[in-house]
């Protein structure tokens, strides 16, 4: 049978079940309850028509209790707990304990002293409510551990063995031995139809709700009652029951107006649609529960309230300002965002009021608003809100303070302010695209790609950013290393590399690593360990088998590979950027690689695409005159010649020859090179070569021998030629 929960509504399930005596109006013990997810069997709606509120006197020793003052188990006398003695758990990690089997069903609280066995003295304990993990807690050896949730049916301890000493459980839904009396009968069925004045007596204080809002709330109420349980909301949104939950969760007052909350105190006046009697006039130790008058739903859990003033909500520490970022929005304007996150010890804190000071440039403004957000992994009592603004400056600072709010419209005191947090700039602007580059040895000229009308974006402009030009001075280094050990994780890989320690292991940070089919970005190197970022989504990652070889490469845009050669304001960047960049005289073909990047507000943007300037050495001069001496003929009838230049030359030279007496003008088209190729002359003047010259027999022959100078880029001078006579054989 589905059951009522004397608990909070809305999305937050872990609500306190009740407060102590609240002195502010409406005075008394404040209660609220929620409905189950599904309708009772055979019913077409979730909520019953009438709710009975029951109360029983309980002797609660405020000074003893179970030592628990917060959460579902607050103020429950010790004798109402179920004690199980010491429970040892062992096996494989994690060890598990089924509380359903141990206690006969889910419980709302578990209490034990954790005793570690071998290994670490701390352990991770996780408590489950069917499929949902409701508590995650690190525990220490010897620690008294209390876990609370609306329902806990299973514990896991991430150790292979441990002992839970003096294990106790508390089932607040167990049949109670207390003597309950009905003190109120709430007519839920009437809520949707009655006038505002008819339900006003339910909330014995000055309401914030007024007629128009009540009508809207009634509309939500009636829409829910008209909706079949389990209906799907439009466009993936909340269904009518969920929408009503949200409205009721906003304020306890709303729940009370609708009949889902109640105050047991002296402020209550005569009811119109409900009935109540014998309400408390002063604090008293009592227990409450609610029941469906039609008994289609099981009774709720029991809530224990001490005969004392409810303690004030504990002041929260300064909130954390997280995920702050200044970015360029899609609109082209500066967009800032940040999260404000709070946490506190009281799981009854369902939200906060936030006072926030925002400084944009030199303008400061303050705003107060409520925060109810909660992330999936936030424990009860913690939460966050996400904030976004479009601003005109990249300098944005945020400070805030919060005060807690519980599910009964109570507010705590303001906590301390955070120090102003300057939001970090998260902007990686691309520099202007460059089309071409030239360098004449002293000056570099870079030309923007058409249409050459680049202007800095709003963020860079606001920060008076500059364009920095860098020239590559080194090639990325590479390293091949064996993988000694690999510790995989889902999103990263930790590898221990073998071999000689490279001179600068940090050079590989930001570079790539390949290990078999795995490739990723190196995010940290602390030799011999390297951390590799391995993005993969939901799919698998490539495995790294033992004995693999890792190939690391430095990022081609690593700053160490470049030297800054120029910088100028980004605003008004001309289509052609000219700056001095003196280079030594080129002795061979040389490519100079330039890249631009933006510098702004202490940030350095990514390097843009490379543009290259080709430098060629000067065309060499024509070699000096020379004379030719024949040294003989080899086995293959090739003629060995010696050329002696009249003066030394440092140039590279090559010897060519052509048959007959060939003019300089025709020589290059008719000549063929010698076997020796391009080389320096011995002492600058002597060249030896082997030429396949004709070997005269009876008749002398004439050949033309030429020499040309060649530079390191294969640039060639004109030939200097000599006509050489090959005498006939004697």
């Amino acid at each position, binding site marked *: 049978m589905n059951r009522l929960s004397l608990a909070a509504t809305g999305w937050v399930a872990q609500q306190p079940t009740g407060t102590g005596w609240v002195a502010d109006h409406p005075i008394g013990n404040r209660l609220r309850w929620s409905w189950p997810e599904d309708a009772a069997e055979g019913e077409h709606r979730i909520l019953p028509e009438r709710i009975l509120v029951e109360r029983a006197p309980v002797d609660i020793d405020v000074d003893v209790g179970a030592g628990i003052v917060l959460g579902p188990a607050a103020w429950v006398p010790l004798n109402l707990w179920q004690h199980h003695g010491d429970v040892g758990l062992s096996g494989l990690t994690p060890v598990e304990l089924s509380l359903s089997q141990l206690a006969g069903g889910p419980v709302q609280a578990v209490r034990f002293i954790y005793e570690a066995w071998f*290994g670490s003295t701390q352990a991770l304990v996780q408590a489950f409510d069917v499929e949902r993990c409701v508590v995650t807690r690190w525990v220490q050896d010897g620690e008294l551990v209390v876990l609370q949730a609306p329902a806990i049916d299973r514990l896991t301890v991430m150790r292979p063995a441990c002992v839970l000493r003096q294990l106790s459980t508390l089932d607040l839904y167990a049949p109670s031995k207390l003597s309950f009396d009905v003190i109120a009968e709430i007519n839920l069925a009437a809520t949707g139809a009655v006038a505002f004045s008819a339900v006003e007596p339910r909330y014995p204080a000055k309401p914030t709700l007024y007629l128009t809002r009540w009508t809207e709330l009634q509309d939500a109420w009636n829409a829910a009652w008209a909706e079949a349980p389990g209906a799907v909301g439009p466009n993936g949104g909340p269904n009518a029951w969920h929408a009503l939950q949200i409205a009721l969760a906003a304020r306890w007052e709303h729940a009370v107006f609708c009949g889902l909350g109640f105050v047991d105190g002296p402020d209550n006046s005569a009811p119109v649609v409900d009935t109540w009697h014998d309400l408390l006039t002063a604090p008293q130790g009592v227990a409450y529960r609610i029941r469906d008058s039609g008994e289609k739903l099981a009774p709720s859990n029991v809530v224990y309230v001490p005969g004392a003033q409810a303690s004030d909500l504990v002041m929260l520490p300064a909130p954390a300002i997280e995920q702050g970022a200044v970015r360029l929005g899609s609109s082209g304007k500066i967009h800032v965002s940040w999260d404000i996150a709070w946490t506190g010890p009281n799981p009854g804190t369902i939200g906060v009021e936030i006072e926030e000071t925002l400084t944009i440039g030199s303008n400061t403004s303050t705003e107060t608003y409520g925060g109810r957000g909660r992330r999936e992994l936030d424990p009860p009592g913690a939460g966050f809100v996400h904030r976004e603004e479009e601003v005109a400056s990249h300098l944005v600072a945020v400070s805030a303070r919060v005060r807690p709010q519980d599910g009964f419209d109570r507010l705590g005191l303001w906590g301390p302010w955070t120090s102003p947090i300057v939001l970090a700039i998260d902007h990686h602007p691309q520099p202007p695209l460059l089309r071409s580059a030239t360098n004449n040895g002293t000056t570099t000229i870079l030309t923007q790609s058409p249409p050459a009308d680049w202007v800095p974006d709003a963020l860079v402009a606001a920060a008076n950013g500059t364009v920095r030009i860098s020239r590559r001075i080194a090639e990325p280094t590479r390293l091949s290393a064996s993988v000694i050990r690999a510790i995989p994780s889902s999103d990263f890989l930790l590898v221990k590399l073998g071999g000689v320690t490279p001179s600068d292991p940090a050079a590989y940070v930001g570079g790539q690593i390949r290990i078999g089919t795995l490739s990723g970005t190196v995010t940290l190197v602390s030799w011999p360990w390297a951390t590799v970022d391995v993005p993969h989504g939901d799919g698998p990652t490539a495995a790294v088998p033992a004995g693999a070889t890792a190939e690391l490469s430095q990022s081609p845009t690593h700053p160490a590979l470049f030297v800054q050669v120029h910088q100028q304001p980004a605003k008004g960047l001309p289509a052609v950027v000219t700056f001095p960049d003196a280079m030594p005289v080129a002795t061979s073909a040389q490519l100079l690689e330039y890249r631009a990047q933006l510098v702004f507000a202490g940030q350095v943007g990514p390097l843009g695409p490379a543009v290259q300037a080709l430098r060629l050495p000067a065309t060499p001069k024509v070699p000096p005159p020379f004379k030719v001496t024949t040294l003989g003929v080899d*086995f293959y009838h090739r003629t060995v010649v010696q050329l002696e230049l009249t003066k030394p030359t440092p140039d590279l030279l090559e010897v060519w020859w052509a048959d007959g007496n060939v003019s300089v003008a025709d020589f290059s088209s008719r000549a063929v090179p010698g076997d020796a190729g391009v080389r320096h002359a011995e002492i600058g003047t002597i060249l030896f070569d082997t030429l396949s010259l004709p070997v005269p027999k009876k008749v002398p022959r004439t050949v033309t021998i030429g020499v040309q100078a060649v530079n390191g880029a294969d640039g060639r001078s004109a030939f200097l030629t000599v006509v050489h006579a090959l005498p006939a054989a004697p």
Partner: protein
Amino acid sequence: MDLGALHPISGRQWKLTDEQANAIWPDVCLVVPFGAQVADATNTIVNPVNGESVQGGWTVTSTLLTLQLTDLVQDIKVAGVTAVWAAGPGGDIPALHILGNDPFSWLTPHLDVAGSASTTTYPLRDQWFGAGPAQLFAKPRRFGGLVVAPVEFGVLLAPPLGWLATRVLRAPNAKLSFSYPSGKAIKVDQLWLGVLRGIEEPIEQNLQVDEEVPLVDGWSLALIRIDVGKGTDAVEIPYGGSILFVRYRQRPLTVTTPERITLQPGHYELTLSGVTQAKAPAPEFDDPPDKPWSATQRFWVEHPPSLRPYVRFTTLGDDRLFGPKRGFDPTLPGVGFPAHGDYLPVVRFCVPYVKGMFKNLRLRVDYLDAPNVSQEVDVLANVAGESALPEAAQIWKAAHGGTVPPDDEVFMTSPLPSAGPASFRLSHVPAAGAEFELDSWGVQISRFPNAATHLAWPVTCITRFYRYDGPHDQTACPTIGSPKWKEVARNIFWGRIRAHDLHVHEPERLGPQPKQTDFAESIAGQLLMPIDVIITGMPEEYATPPDDWPLPSALASLAEPLGADAAQRFLLFLWRSKVRLSAQAGAPELADVGDPVESTTIEAVCDGENRPLALWLRTPEPIDWRRVHADMTLRHVNSDTGCPTSYANRHTMALAVRLLPSIDGSGALLVARLGGVPTRLPRGEITLKVAYEPAEPGLVKLRPRTPLPSGHETLSMTFLQPFGQTWPIKPAEGAVGVVPHIPQLVQKRKFGPPEPLPYGKQAVHELVEKLLAEEPTGQ
């Protein structure tokens, strides 16, 4: 779809057309360029794939349904057609090579790429369980390609390791299955569970832990192997602890390695067709209709006009004709080194199916001025079993149960009686029809039958040296008489036998000082028992050239390993040595440097003090110096001038030799190195040992007509070097530990009845007789 053809041997490509003028060769692969690899329903692809990909959630499968090659001339379907997905850098590429049978053979002309090419094998993958809150689940839950179906429930838990962002899974006995999002099963052939273990956490004995990596806080990561036999798509989790990830490998499809076929000349038609199907990711989406595709292309096949693309190498002629060869080769392009007659002319092809095209060939050596030599030879598989297939292709074939057939070759057993230039011709004489030439190239037949004869110099003394003032010739000195072992005492007394002559057989041992343990095997060790006293006597020698004996750096820098610039370095060595080669007044210093000599000789290139800077080994013909390995020993002699008269009581110098070949490779400067330092040579008796390696790594393997016992030719030449100066003696620094001087040994030796010998029971005279038998020329 444009279809092409690729000749996997030469890399030549065609676009397939129905034009006879554009006929392809019989052994080409027909190339079908797909956008992605497709599944095979024809059973012709030797390395089939599943042809599946996930595109926007849809599982798309393309399948080849028909693949047919028709001989239009005979109107029959060509049998035995195979196809293969080609391999490329980083894995398979979506190019189907019809008539191919391994993924790598098409890379034969691109060995640089073949070295990095690989076929797609499914890599090992680790499937994690994602970040998020801890939770239990009772229904099957998908993680990537993994589905966990718990028996009762599985649980995902935050791990006890702060740096680990993902959850661990505990699901004992759950069904672990592998599938695409569409539900199509994935077979895995390797499977492990990556589990988190605490200290003393047990693992059942029937589970095999392949690897365990210690983490922190007492935790470790263990890899538990799950036996999946030859492959499965589902297993039961046999482990009840925390699983960090599941490591698996998708099983590749079965691969076969059939023999490939070659086509006969004719007219053909290629037809292929298939279908592409897509399966929706979920039932609420409709599957799109199947999309068929097809292609048909006719083409012609003819024999290649020449065998040149199929020739891998030859031992007769210039091997550079069959592919670029870098480095040392000073010969005339197209001619190559003269071939020695003791080696068979061999032409090796780069495929195993030339015999399928030509069962036999006619090989002919056409001399310019001598009778031709012709021989009909069968095309045979090479007996060494060698294949030109890229290593990756060979490994692939072997790994998939195939064999690598040896490439074909032809060789000529007829002797080549004449020397000189010639043409080497390959032709085919069909059963019907005229002989047609398939290839030819120029060759040079050596006057020498082998390298040993080529390099041999029977003279026992260098008589010519070159100096700054020209060549100098002098009369050969007589050899130093070797003492008779029978007259040990007398020869020792006169200093004609050194201690180490008795102690060491191998002169190489004289580099370092002989150790006492060497004595046991030495003659002296067997003569003198026990050798327990090391007596000072023989002077210690320099380990590296002292004083001004090292070669000047300008010369030393030229004596580097062989390279394309060797001829230049040879000329520069002579030039920088300042020697004159001609006695003729007014002639250039290096006159006649290129002229071949009439017969093999050794001369010296000397400095101003007549000390040889290098020896010049000159022969009448070029020889491939890459195959020549030389070293020399120098035995010091007495008298510092004139002809040597006796051996000095000194250690023999062991010298390494660097070769610096001449312009045409007919000669080489021999530059000696002591302790790695190029050095001038002193007076002495030189023993030059030369080895000629027919199977030099990196070069064409020469095949001797008669197998060489040692695998290579060897030659030892001993001659006097009477020029220059005596090698200096290192000043004594307490010559402890040197080999005893014989006269002193003699004094200690008791002459008389032989004493018991420690090693063997041979009497002294027996040992001497043995020595004499080893050195029959001993005087």
